[in-house]
């Protein structure tokens, strides 16, 4: 034993010296990698809509993962099924109506897809009171024009976009008080309103929106 050969004359000194070495061998910090303790994300990623009756209309609430993992991919949504769609070739598919990636919402039409989905903005409208779609004023997706963003120009984004970005330091994204009427690939009309850009755990890019089918124009 090296420790015993050290010229430590007092037993207490030997004890302290041995203790130092023992403690230094035992003392490494635990590995924290993968130690996050939560279960996989809770029901808030589930896009099965919550539904409730309002004025005789069934209003659904859906939450979509708008590229939370930042892999630069869209999440596709169909009003007909009321759920996320997984088209093999989104650019030629008509199985989706709108799609989400971060703050970008596209419609399946024009430059964005092979469908015929068009959108009309009702700025500041009362969601509950809107029960019948207008006959005109719907736009399809067009290539990015002269506005400040670099996303496609459509009913959600052109001009008065659906969200407000607070910038530094909070970077909060807050939905504006707009109601959108979407003419789906099926020819049916749906009203929708974005409620939040965050899930209950505070994660960004979880877009929560409520929607309902409404009466077609005469």
């Amino acid at each position, binding site marked *: 034993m090296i420790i015993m050969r050290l010229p*430590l*004359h007092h037993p207490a*000194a030997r004890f302290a010296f041995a203790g130092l070495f023992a403690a230094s061998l035992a*003392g490494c910090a635990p590995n924290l*990698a993968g*130690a*996050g303790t939560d279960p996989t994300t809770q029901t808030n990623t589930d896009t099965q809509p919550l539904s409730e009756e309002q004025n005789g209309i069934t209003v659904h609430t859906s939450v979509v993962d708008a590229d939370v993992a930042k892999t630069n991919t869209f999440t596709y949504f169909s009003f007909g099924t009321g759920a996320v769609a997984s088209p093999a070739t989104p650019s030629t598919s008509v199985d989706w109506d709108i799609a989400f990636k971060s703050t970008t919402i596209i419609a399946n039409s024009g430059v964005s897809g092979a469908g015929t989905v068009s959108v009309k903005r009702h700025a500041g409208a009362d969601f509950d009171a809107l029960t019948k779609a207008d006959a005109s004023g719907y736009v399809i997706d067009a290539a990015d024009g002269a506005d400040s963003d670099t996303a496609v120009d459509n009913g959600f984004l052109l001009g008065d976009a659906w969200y407000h970005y607070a*910038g530094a330091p909070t970077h909060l994204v807050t939905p504006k008080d707009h109601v959108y009427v979407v003419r789906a690939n099926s020819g049916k009309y749906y009203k929708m309103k974005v409620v939040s850009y965050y899930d209950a755990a505070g*994660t960004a890019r979880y877009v929560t929106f409520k929607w309902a089918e409404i009466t077609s124009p005469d």
Partner: protein
Amino acid sequence: MTVAHPRLKPPSAAPLAALALIFGALPAQAQAPHGSDAPQLDDVVVTGTRTERRLADTPVATEVITRSEIEASGAVNVADLLTSRTGIEVFSALQGEGIRLQGLDSKHVLILVDGRRITGRLSGTVDLTRYPIESIERVEIVRGGSSALYGSEAMAGVINLITRQAKESLSFETQGLYGSLNTGVFSGTMSQTSEAFDTRITAGWRRQDAYDLTPGTPGTTGNALNEVTLSNNSSFKLSRDRQVKTHLDYYNRGQYGIDSSTTGAVFDRTNHTESFSGSIEPQFTLPGLANLKVSAYYNHYRDQYLKDQRNSNALDQYEQTVDQLAQLQVQDERAIGLDHLLTSGAEIAYERLSTDRLNAAYGDRKRAALYAQDEWQALPSLVVLPGLRADLDSRYGTNVAPKVALRYDATQAVTLRASLGTGFRAPDFKELLLQFQNVSAGYEIVGNPNLGPETSTSLNVGLDSRLASWAWISANLYQNEVANLIQTELARAGTADTITQYRYVNVASAMTRGIEASLRIQPFTGFVLEPGYTLNDTLDRSTGLLLEGRSLHKGTLTARYQHEPWGLGIYVRGALNGERPFHSKANAVTSTTMAPAFTTLEARLAKSLSRQLSAHVQGSNLLNVTDPVYTPMQPLTLLAGLTARF
């Protein structure tokens, strides 16, 4: 012939008093008051010249915080100790607390432990709360560019933490403290000396709860922590002219806090920081008035960071940083004739950093350096100290740093010191190798392998004078010019296919200048009053703005009273920090906010109960400054404790 040189101190502790004055009596120095915590002129300092010198003799102005002042102050760690000091700013960093010196950033201050470089700078800052006070013998501070001796980072100056060595034949010391935030501090030390072997072992433990200056949010401001330290300094005396010093230490700290974001996300944050260092230093006294020191050491630093989102794992984050440094150095010190002391040395080092966000698994560098200085007694009252160091770095090539210092004893009571020095800071691995993308915000920051070092020139002119038998003044004027500062610059504007790219370049420059002055008054035995003042004027030469977070004016006051008959000691220290500028940029317009002035105040009261036992109560942040935005200090903290020595 075995006549000792008057200024060359042999590494074995030969009595300095026996050394004859070869070339006439040096003028008596401005004597510091005895019987107080003041550094004594016979105290040995090392930082100014990298060799052991009496404080009275060193040609390089050196501020010393002695063990007795450390104990009187009640500081728990080195950051506490440096709070409220002239010319030093302590600020809350990403982790713990860092310091600024002469208005320059913490990345421009070289921190040494017993003259050895350390690892574990986070964003350029060394967390000084990492160094518990129980193992610190003294702190030496040398201001101004000192890269001519120490190489990279010694731009604003050098702070050298000197650890405690064994002193008595066999002694034990323990201290316990308890108080606010469930703070508990316990340390124990064993020290033994004998003819052939000295050793000192210290173990320490500290814990405290988190605190919160923003009660409206779930997040905490200051971390809960749990810290364990172990260290050993030993010395093997092989013969009269040979000895080997060894050093080992281990540090382990867990920090726990809660972060909350404006989106409603709440995170439990855990940090585990560990460091290990070990060194071995053979020292030889050579014939012909020379000393030779060899030193080999290794530092290992590991920091783990886990951010655990509550109710989700979408934003969970884990990062690990491992920083390793191995260094070998040789230094020779010899007298040449009667008027020259030549110190020369060589160093080689290997450093390796692995962390997330680098564009490679790790970054590494090799470094070699040669340095020399000549301490020349030009006149009986004048010492001239030219020095030069050349560094060769595998990342950017060579850098040559010169320095010259003068010391002039104008009268028996007045000593003038001046130094013109250069400094540099080698680009760190993040600046060289970073690969960081923020896709959602549409930009990336990349390192630049072609970076050169940041460089500086600094001028210090100082005066130490005895005004009366009870009053001393010390003043220093400084100016630092810093160039080639590394900042990010737009490298490529974003297009439809590529995101905006920023990268590090040597572009910015800055200036700091000011005055550091202090007075020491001892009106009667046992009582010392030290008022101090710092003027610190700064300029970011690239933007024309003041440097952020620096106070233009700072006033400090320390008062100590020792009443021997009652065994009572009182220590009070305070600092008034003037308002500080902070800049923010929105839509390409910079606006400046002045953070309000604030005052820090600490006090300690100690009472000897017997020869072995003393009790103390102490308080920090007594005015309870709690500004979560600009001054997130720990709120008013009171601690009480006992110290036993036997």
